[in-house]
């Protein structure tokens, strides 16, 4: 890379943090590894076979999810940077919350070359088991700072089995 290179710090420090990182990922982030599908041809990213496109964006990305519980509500957060609220599809199936989305790539203006492509693009799907019965029809979802946050009030067991939640 001509214009910019990643700075590698001390090798030993690098190995240490790498080992720690993997250990941490193995224990806590297995489920956060999310498959990004590109069934349709991406509108903007050129094909990997293109001469000026030696890199291909990854098919896997880490979308960290969290489920919180408080009196009266369940809160689910998903880190999904670089999206629009309208790119999310949030649905509740019984006690399973399903989050789908599409991360779109953006065309860069003019002639140029990708030097690094580490961020994943495409469609993804994540499912979370909710710790309690919820009133899905009263759920709210918001998207801020690249984090999707869904708040679901806890409720009676006769809650509807399948409700679509609109992302605001």
């Amino acid at each position: 890379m001509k214009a910019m290179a990643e700075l590698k710090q001390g090798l030993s420090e690098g190995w240490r943090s790498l080992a720690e990182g993997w250990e941490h990922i193995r224990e806590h982030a297995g489920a956060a590894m999310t498959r990004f599908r590109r069934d349709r041809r991406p509108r903007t990213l050129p094909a990997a076979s293109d001469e000026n496109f030696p890199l291909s964006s990854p098919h896997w990305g880490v979308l960290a999810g969290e489920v919180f519980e408080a009196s009266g509500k369940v809160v689910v957060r998903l880190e999904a940077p670089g999206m629009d609220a309208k790119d999310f599809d949030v649905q509740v199936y019984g006690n399973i919350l399903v989050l789908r989305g599409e991360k779109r790539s953006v065309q860069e203006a003019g002639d140029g070359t990708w030097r690094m492509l580490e961020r994943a693009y495409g469609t993804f799907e994540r499912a979370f088991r909710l710790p309690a019965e919820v009133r899905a029809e009263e759920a709210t979802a918001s998207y801020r700072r690249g984090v999707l946050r869904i708040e679901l009030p806890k409720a009676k067991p006769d809650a509807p089995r399948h409700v679509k939640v609109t992302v605001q």
Partner: protein
Amino acid sequence: MDMNQKGLRREANEEAQAAPLVPPVDIWEDNDGITLKADLPGVAKEGLAVGVDGETLTIEGAVSLGESAKLKDVYAEVRVARYRRTFVLGRDLDSEKIAARLKNGVLELRIPKLEAAKPRRIPVRVA
């Protein structure tokens, strides 16, 4: 979840806080400069630091959760409090003219090339 597991997880969370996460980036280079995009979900403008020291560009972000302490976490995959990544800027880049923008958890940096480093187009006049 039993106490032992919970304790282990807390320990791991503390470790995670000590070791910052390396954010994934896309870098696009064109004739006028480079555009860098880094995923920093949960980072507010106030928690972001972009700095250049000599040839080293450092991106640092602190996550502000914004959740009240009353919430009990049932399940957490990656609990990172901090992002950090450093790059070496090529000599052809003008580090004094870096423009930064943070939107939807994505930091976008535009670093122009020095005038001298830009390819020059020589107009051809038809005689």
